């Protein structure tokens, strides 16, 4: 049995098709990423899987249970951390945690080992009201509350949005540890670099899954040759490269440009020469392996 099975799922809000026929499966114990921008349908998918809304068509199972018929059982075995802060702002840190434990008929003590690493970082502030916590601490409390009943499947909807790169790394470290406890984790994120930390990912855009595979697998499937170039005046170089007749795509990536050429051209020599003529000096193209953002942009174009 799979931890999650989704078949032909569709959901419309009035005229907007939030999800246009999505199917996928997640294995038990997997760390599965749903990667895509705002408005791609990530939250809708999470709300269907956590039994908060009905799909219009298709079916979804969590641990073999149907999200419509067996919603009560599902609610006992999943943990859900919604994108917006979901705790009681007027309750203290400890009161929030106790509340969630009680609702699920358990105690903080019973599963303390699961949350220990995370909770002990905020324990010094356990009498502080949740509303007065910093962003990072709120995130840790919300995760503790979603874990306190030892869920079989953990749903994290954009847990790292608006979080700085250092805190994001730390958060992913926590997820790695939870995975070792055997919990299946479904996590959504708009940050493409986080894709590499998942076992498998679904790239989602405009309500459709464009691709499902391991991150490495998705990169292996990128079938164009890709070059990287650098120059003195990057903005002008970008504009000039786009003017070059052989250019298929050209995007800025930090301190360099990523380029694909039309018709799978064998060499970037022509472009190097063109750039030199445009006054960029000696530009050297280096062939590179794609990253997830390259893949995502290529899939979006199709």
């Amino acid at each position, binding site marked *: 049995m799979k931890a999650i099975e989704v078949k032909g799922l569709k959901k419309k809000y009035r005229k907007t098709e939030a999800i246009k026929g999505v199917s996928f499966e997640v294995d038990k114990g997997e760390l599965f990423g749903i990667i895509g921008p705002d408005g791609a349908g990530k939250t809708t998918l999470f709300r269907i899987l956590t039994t908060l809304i009905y799909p219009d068509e298709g079916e979804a199972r969590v641990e073999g249970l149907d999200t419509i018929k067996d919603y009560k059982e599902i609610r006992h075995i999943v943990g859900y951390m919604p994108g917006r802060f979901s705790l009681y702002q007027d309750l203290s840190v400890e009161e929030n945690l106790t509340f969630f434990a009680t609702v699920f008929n358990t105690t903080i003590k019973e599963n303390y080992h699961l949350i220990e690493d995370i909770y002990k970082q905020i324990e010094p502030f356990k009498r502080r009201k949740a509303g007065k916590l910093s962003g990072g601490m709120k995130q840790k409390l919300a995760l503790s509350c979603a874990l306190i009943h030892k869920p079989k499947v953990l749903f994290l909807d954009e847990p790292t949005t608006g979080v700085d790169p250092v805190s994001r790394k730390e958060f992913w470290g926590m997820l790695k540890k939870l995975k070792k406890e055997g919990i299946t984790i479904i996590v959504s994120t708009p940050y493409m670099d986080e894709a590499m930390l998942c076992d498998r990912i679904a790239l989602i855009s405009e309500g459709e899954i464009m691709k499902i595979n391991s991150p490495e697998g998705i990169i292996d499937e990128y079938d164009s040759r890709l070059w990287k170039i650098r120059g003195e005046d990057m903005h002008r170089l970008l504009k000039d490269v786009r003017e070059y007749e052989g250019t298929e795509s050209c995007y800025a990536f930090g301190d360099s440009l990523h380029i694909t050429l039309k018709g799978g051209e064998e060499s970037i020599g022509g472009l190097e020469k063109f750039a030199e003529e445009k006054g960029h000096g000696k530009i050297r193209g280096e062939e590179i392996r794609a990253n997830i953002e390259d893949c*995502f942009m290529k899939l979006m174009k199709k």
Partner: protein
Amino acid sequence: MKKVIEAENLVKKFGDFTAVDNITFQVNEGEIFGFLGANGAGKTTAMRMLCGLSKPTSGEGRVAGYDIGKEAEKVKANIGYMSQKFSLYNDLKVWENIRLFGGIYGMGSDEIKEKTDELLKRLNFENEKNTMVKSLPLGWKQKLAFSVSIFHNPKIVFLDEPTGGVDPATRRQFWELIYEATDRGITVFVTTHYMDEAEYCDRVSIMVDGRIDALESPMKLRETYDAKNMDEVFYQLARTAKRNGG
């Protein structure tokens, strides 16, 4: 070189907590200035002071030629501001949003009309003039929000995480709009959590525990910290933080 921001020993305290701890820096005219820092490092507080929304506890600052303590209203009128959260009114049409913000910044009706047509044309939005903002795709909304924030031709525009949550292609298109704005002489002050975007800035400052611990061009920062990219630079600096913000 002309300075659009001059901050000298700026401090902001809340009770006994020092959110911004004596920062001094300048932003040059026409520059793209990246303002980085971990959550809780004091970026938002510093930015609120520079926008004339919060009075410094001590220190001085001039933005767009006005004193942020004594001439806060003039500062507000001469800057642009855009954040991911607050941008446009969803229940107004595209042209109504433009009209509203133009009016708030004291532009005359004729000027607004003329510049609206020009703006819609430049963005290829002519057919969307009467569309409700809520039914625009996110990437379009962002483009519009940015254009509206510089509609009154401010000396400087403050962008607070403008690209959060958008797809990678839209994120890059957005940066092209930023470059276009600087071509027109507008100075850009931008915060972001995407470290590749830090590379697109002329200079970058990194805040740690209320202080500015580094301020250089991305290339120099990479050299100084012997890092292969800005992500590593940021990591090296931010992990020295003592505050529990993140």
